[in-house]
Each structure stands twice: as structure tokens, then as C-alpha cells.
């Protein structure tokens, strides 16, 4: 039945492309989570009235974050070609898309992390200080756990944006469902392939959203 409705769809290719999309999204979400939290913590801690208050450092990190957040993703991929070649060795395939995906998404997430951290009651940080907590204790036992629901919902939004980015990266040769939809669907005019790729991307997005919402509600004890 499927072969009549979707004559041009080769399922092995579809599954391979889906696996590539999941791979790219998975790795880049993990890396964005870590990198974004580090950048976000630096932004927060160096801002006025906080533990590492430092105007110069804060301005520099903010500038870095703003620049990479503002460059349109498709241009960022092209700009990063030399860098990608240097660390991955190639500019084709799923691996080669990772640097651009991470560098594009981490600053975006870093801002969300900063906002989440700013939402924490200053009194709680003061209380931890009054108990004699070190800065690392404050980071790992106060700042991160207290902002975790916001960090998770932020990474959910970022992950969904990353699924979109992987599709764009696909156009310039990264593989995945975006690549398939572009090469098979658009260039060969096989609309059924585009349709299937779209449905699969939608399913991935829904699943990410569901997991994100579920985890957020589980850990939010407020």
C-alpha cells in the first residue's frame, strides 16, 4: 500500500537519514547543554553584584555570545568551513555539521541559562554564603539545582531549534532528513520524499517537546 502512495520513498534511505538527524541533534544538544551552561554561568557570575563581578570579562563574553547568536545559521556554516576542516578533517557528513551546530546553538542557550540563573532568589545564594559555602558549592549545589527546571525547558527549546539547524546543515552536505528532502525531494521533484521527511522531523520535535515537558514537571518542586 505504502509503495503506491509514496512511490519514490526508499525506506532504507529514510531510516539512515533519520539516524543521521538524531545523531547530529543528540550530540549537538549534549555539547550545547554543557557549553551553554558554562557560558551562561560565566555571564551570570561576572555580572554586577555577583561572585566574580568583572565588567571587562562580562562585556567580552557578552560580545562573543551576541555575535554568534546573531549570525544567520546558514552563513555561520560557511564561515566555519576552515575551522571545521581543521578539527573534523572534512566538511561533508554528519560529523562535519557538529561544530557549526554547537557554535550556533550554545550562545543562544547561554542567554537562556543566564536568565534562568538571574531568576534565582538572591537570598538563597546569600544563605549558602552565610553557611560558609565555596563558590563551587554554590554553583553545583545551589545555582544549577535551583534553576534546573528552567535549564531543562531552555534546552528543550534549543533542541527543537537544533533539529531545524540540522535540516539546514543538510542542504550543504551534512546528511540527515534535511539533506534527503533537499536532494531527493526538491531537486528530483519527489514530493512524497519531502512529505515523509517533514513528518519524521515533526515527530522528532514532538518527542523532544514531550520529554522536555515531562522532565521539567518532574523536577519542579516549587
Amino acid at each position, binding site marked *: 500500500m505504502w509503495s503506491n502512495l509514496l512511490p519514490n520513498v526508499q525506506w532504507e534511505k529514510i531510516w539512515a537519514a533519520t539516524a543521521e538527524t538524531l545523531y547530529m541533534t543528540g550530540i549537538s544538544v549534549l555539547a550545547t547543554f554543557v557549553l551553554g551552561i558554562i557560558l551562561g554561568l560565566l555571564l551570570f557570575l561576572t555580572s554586577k553584584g555577583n561572585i566574580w563581578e568583572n565588567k571587562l570579562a562580562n562585556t567580552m563574553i557578552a560580545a562573543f555570545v551576541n555575535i554568534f547568536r546573531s549570525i544567520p545559521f546558514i552563513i555561520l556554516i560557511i564561515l566555519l568551513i576552515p575551522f571545521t576542516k581543521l578539527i573534523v578533517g572534512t566538511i561533508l557528513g554528519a560529523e562535519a555539521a557538529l561544530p557549526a551546530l554547537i557554535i550556533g546553538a550554545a550562545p543562544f542557550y547561554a542567554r537562556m541559562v543566564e536568565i534562568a540563573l538571574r531568576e534565582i*532568589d538572591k*537570598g*538563597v545564594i*546569600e*544563605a*549558602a*554564603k*552565610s*553557611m*560558609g*559555602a*565555596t563558590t563551587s*558549592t554554590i554553583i553545583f*549545589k*545551589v545555582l544549577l*539545582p*535551583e534553576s*534546573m527546571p528552567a535549564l531543562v525547558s531552555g534546552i528543550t527549546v534549543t533542541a527543537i531549534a537544533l533539529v531545524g539547524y540540522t535540516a539546514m546543515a543538510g542542504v550543504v552536505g551534512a546528511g540527515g532528513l534535511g539533506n534527503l528532502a533537499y536532494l531527493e525531494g526538491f531537486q528530483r521533484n519527489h514530493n512524497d520524499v519531502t512529505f515523509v521527511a517533514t513528518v519524521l522531523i515533526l515527530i522528532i520535535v514532538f518527542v523532544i517537546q514531550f520529554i522536555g515537558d515531562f522532565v521539567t514537571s518532574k*523536577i519542579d*518542586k*516549587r
Partner: protein
Amino acid sequence: MITLSNVTKIYKAKSGTVTAVDNVSLHIREGEIFGIIGYSGAGKSSLIRMLNGLEKATSGQVIVAGRDMANIKGRELRKARQEIGMIFQHFNLLWSRTVRENIAFPLEIAGVPKKERLKRVDELIKLVGLEGRENAYPSQLSGGQKQRVGIARALANNPKVLLCDEATSALDPQTTDSILDLLVDINKRLGLTIVLITHEMHVIRKICDRVAVMESGKIVEEGEVLRVFRKPEQPITKRFVQQVTEPEETKETISHLLEKYPQGRVIQLTFVGDAAEQPLMTNIIRKFNVSVNIVQGKISQTHQGAYGVLFIHIDGTEEEMDKVIDYIRQQQVEAEVMTNVE
């Protein structure tokens, strides 16, 4: 236990400098409950935060349990802070942790092994009366219960000093009283020195041994709570004392009486401790040819003893009334003739 000498705290703001604490010297004895009262902006918040180094004094010395809090930092400061517990107006609990985990937090910071931690947390939960709520999250607790968690957390590392930053200001009167009772109980049982700041004279009356009154960064009056209640010297202190002794309507009643009985006098009598137990009224009526009318009275219990205020109206000849007032003063009772009430 705590000695402040010439402590000043100056904040730099865009519009110039603000002197929050102005040349304050203070001595707080071991084991006492010391209250600092003042309106908001008086500098009491900055003062209490200098006691554990959350704020650094601009000049002067802050000695707490033998350490100069104004001049230590890093590891030594963190170690010192573990010996000074603090509780807050808004409790400042970690919402992501249960009651048990919140109380265990300072123990984790101090590096206490897990097994001992659990044991100590159980003791503390019993101490503050939170049995059965160990696994609740702060959002599931009432204000009073949250402050109990705050107190347990502050006591976890067996501190020598407990700082209370407006600890009852966010609580209703009944809960306030139960938290104050708990603080007195802890003070007696553990011999802990407690320093509290508040804007409610009720808190001072109920639990403090001594009190300091702060106004625009300075301590304007200091002394035993009973002494301050009996003979407040500064106008601001009088206002605070009135908070507990004189209900709002008293002023109205007095001006009404002054109008109604233009002859005679309205006298405010202030009794302290034993004086409250003498049959003063009976003696006045028997010994002097005056008529006595009791207008209003109130007895307040302070941490150190009873304290009463009584308003009476007396009428008779001028000479006789003067004698009555002299007599009252001989009985160690403060007497103030109310003339015009603004």
C-alpha cells in the same frame, strides 16, 4: 562573644555615598539574646550582615567568637561562618531540596560524612518539632514550618552565634510567638548567643535580654529590655515602646478624658516586676482624699519579668493630687501626668 568597635559601613552609590552604619560600638555577651530594633533603612540589616562577613565594614573592628570578621577572607572566613548560623525573613530555603536535604546542606558544606549527617538531621528535626515532615518540599510547608527548617539548618553545625534577620516579620502573630518560643528554648538549651534585628517591639519584649535602638546608622539607646521599657530616653525608643504598651485607641481615650474631666489629672503609671504586685490603688484611696478612676491597663510579659502600664484619672485638690503623685513615685512606680496628647 561579639564586640564591635567604631564600625562604619559606607556604600558608594551613583548619587554619592550612603553611610549605613555610623561609628557603632557594641558588646554582646555570651548566651544572651540581644535585639536590635529600628525602622527600615536604619542600618540594622547592614549591621547584622557584618557579623558574618556578608558585608565588610568600611572601618572598625567586628570581633565574633574571637575572629575579626572585617579582616578575614577565603578559607578562614568560610570556617568562621560555619560557627555563625543565620536565619532570614524569607527563609531562603532551597526549593529543590526536601526538609531533610535542606537541613543537611550546611553539613555537606562542612564535610560531615553521610552517616553522621543523617543522624544530626534527625536530631535537628526533633529539636525544631518537624517530625513527620522530613520528606516534604518547602513549597508544601507553612511559613512557620519553613522558618523551623531555617532554624534547624542554621543550628546544624553547632554554631556559637545565631543571627536572626527579621526572622518573624513575614509570619502571622501566632506563628511569630511559636517561633520566638523556639528561639528562647534553643537559647536556654544550647546556651547559644542570639542576635536579632526587627522592627517589632513585640519581638524584643518577648525574648530579648538587652536591646539596642538604631536610627540613621547610629545606636541611639541601649540597655536591659526592662529598663528601656520602663524609662525610654529617646523619642524613637518611646515610639517603639508604645507599639506594645499603648494600643492606638489609648491616645483617643486620653484626649477624650482630658476634655471630659477638665479638673483632675490623668496619670500613666508604669510598673516593673515586683512593683506590679503592691496594692497601690487601695493605698491611694485609703490614704488620700481623691477619687480614682481606672481608665485602662495592660500588663506585658518580657523575657526578664512583668511590665505593666496603667492609666488612671484622679480628682481632688491640687495639693492632694501632688501628694498622690509623690507617693506613687516613692513606690518605685513611674508616674507621668498626661497633659496634652497630640
